């Protein structure tokens, strides 16, 4: 129950401010010149297709993500190794992660479940996810909550995130090329390097709240 008189019990606002603000906007722009449709003379890409995957690797590394390159056949062994090197005893697994990826990994699998508390997630050592799209020019991976990525919080709370990108299918050159491949009705998380702050004398420090270590595995066949 809400105590706000401007909100009725079903949660619908009923204050007069909506109409007042809209009326004020209409009055404010009544004499304004017409605003034409937007001209989009900017480029669709700044990168030749042939160099896209290399550029992605370079820009990810520039943001202090650790980049690995392998093929489908080498993926399971690489993931086993990365988890072992990190000393992980537990790994969070999204519901639709291809089982073959973690076929050789040692850590105990923790499924991504809605009822897990944030405190429980905080106990997990690593998380492995796929991604929806990766953007070469900006060194960005985008997660859209798909079956191989899971809920937003699983790539946030654990301190170590390994993200698998299938190249070149999931790689685009630029931001304008990424937009049409993403569905805005799903929650999206764009990640460029590990969590970072420059708030103290502009010195960059990794891992304030999000994972301190981001490893990106580019799988090229």
């Amino acid at each position, binding site marked *: 129950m809400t105590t706000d008189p401007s909100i009725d019990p079903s949660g619908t606002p009923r204050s007069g401010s909506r109409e007042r603000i809209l009326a004020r906007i209409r009055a404010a722009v009544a004499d304004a010149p017409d605003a034409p449709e*937007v001209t989009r*003379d*900017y480029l669709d890409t700044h990168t030749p297709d042939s160099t896209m995957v290399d550029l992605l690797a370079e820009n990810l590394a520039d943001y202090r993500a650790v980049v690995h390159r392998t093929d489908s056949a080498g993926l399971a062994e690489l993931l086993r190794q990365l988890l072992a090197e990190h000393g992980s005893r537990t790994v969070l697994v999204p519901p639709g992660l291809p089982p073959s990826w973690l076929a050789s990994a040692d850590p105990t699998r923790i499924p991504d479940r809605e009822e897990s508390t944030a405190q429980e997630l905080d106990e997990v050592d690593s998380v492995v996810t796929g991604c929806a799209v990766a953007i070469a*020019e900006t060194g960005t991976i985008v997660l859209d909550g798909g079956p191989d990525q899971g809920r937003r*919080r699983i790539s946030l709370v654990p301190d170590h995130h390994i993200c698998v990108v299938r190249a070149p299918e999931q790689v685009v050159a630029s931001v304008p090329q990424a937009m049409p491949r993403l569905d*805005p009705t799903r929650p999206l998380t764009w990640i460029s390097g*590990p969590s970072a702050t420059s708030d103290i*004398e502009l010195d960059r420090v990794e891992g304030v709240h999000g994972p301190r270590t981001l490893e990106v595995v580019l799988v090229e066949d």
Partner: protein
Amino acid sequence: MSGTFVGMPSFPRAAKEAVHNKTLRDNLRHATHTIRDKRAKAVAELADWAELREAGKQIKDHTLRHLDRYLVQLESRVTEAGGTVHWAADADEANRIVADLVKATGESEVVKVKSMATQEIGLNEALEAEGIAAYETDLAELIVQLGDDRPSHILVPAIHRNRGEIRDIFREKMADWGRAAPHGLSDTPADLAEAARLHLREKFLRAKVGISGANFMVAETGTLVVFESEGNGRMCLTLPETLISVVGIEKVVPTWRDLEVFLQTLPRSSTAERMNPYTSTWTGTADGDGPRTFHLVLLDNGRTDTLADEVGRQALRCIRCSACLNVCPVYERAGGHAYGSVYPGPIGAILSPQLRGTQSEIDASLPYASSLCGACYEVCPVAIDIPEVLVHLRERVADQGGKGHRVEKAAMKAAGWVLDHPGVLGAGERVASRTRKLHPSKLPGAGAWTRSRELPEMPAEPFRDWWKKNRKPKSDGKKP
């Protein structure tokens, strides 16, 4: 709690204090120059920067022209996606809506991701008055909040604090707010960040209510967007059961595709990165992922007044990148606090007097807190002609006060402050002569004030000498 801006001295008085604080000045100078140089490099990577800037300007202008239509569209999309939309005409109404929503959850604490809109309306103080503790979770905001201080930069609110000061604040204050600073905390940035991580994680993991702003809202889809670096935003946006976002009505853009422009220009302009570490988008609520309840509070609070001003409305294009602060010779010396508002620097000098009106001394003095050098305009990714708006607002200030009027005195003091700082004016003139027709060949209080006094047009360099000779000393013999 961070202080409010009520009773702020006018710009020149606050600025005068700031320039005497050497630590502050050095910290600021280091920071602004570092970001400035990095930004130029990040921008130079994109051959189509000018076109992106033009598109950004056009998107915002088009949206503002049809703001009613896009807000209504946004409202229906957010509602369809399971959110609830509220409209707040002013700060009091927004604060009351948020406080009531929090109370309805039965909670007495909330976690917040840095939001200029909530700072603008004094939400933390309003919540505190209702017995609700609001924890700022951005590292810099934490520093500011623990230090009982005010933010001094849009992007790096604690830019005025160095590592030693931050360590002292953490050691002394963290325990009062939750988990204490680790024993023997050093002043290395990594250790300080780790202390903040531990202190805040405790709060994130138990938080039931999150409060945010948003960088953009997409009318076509009802999507909200937050850009950040640390992950505190992601924590606040995804862990709590209830999310309340307070967003200025000018933050809407028409289409999903429009974001492709700002996703390229905002990070490069603000942190000089190709992309900020984290960007989150959400559309209403999502099944089993993130908050179950989402409220969007659309805030006017002076924005429709600003929209009604045909010259000044361009300030509403601002995407809060803070690039204009980092190039401003006045900001560099005066610091953010001198502007007496959550919006410091050049954008603050035009936005605050429009949102709040020009009746107070601080707001009347802000349009004069500039050398009109034009560097802010050059750097602005949405091409806001800040000098043009400054001159326009000077006319408004001049029109409302007669000679000797309180606001005119405040305004003239601010102009005097700029003129008294040759470095400020000098830096301005160099850029001005290179870049703009708004060269201060007249007193940098162009427009009505100068016209009414029939100042002869004169070149900028001799003007300072003229000013020194001609201004009347105050009765105490000090400079005005």
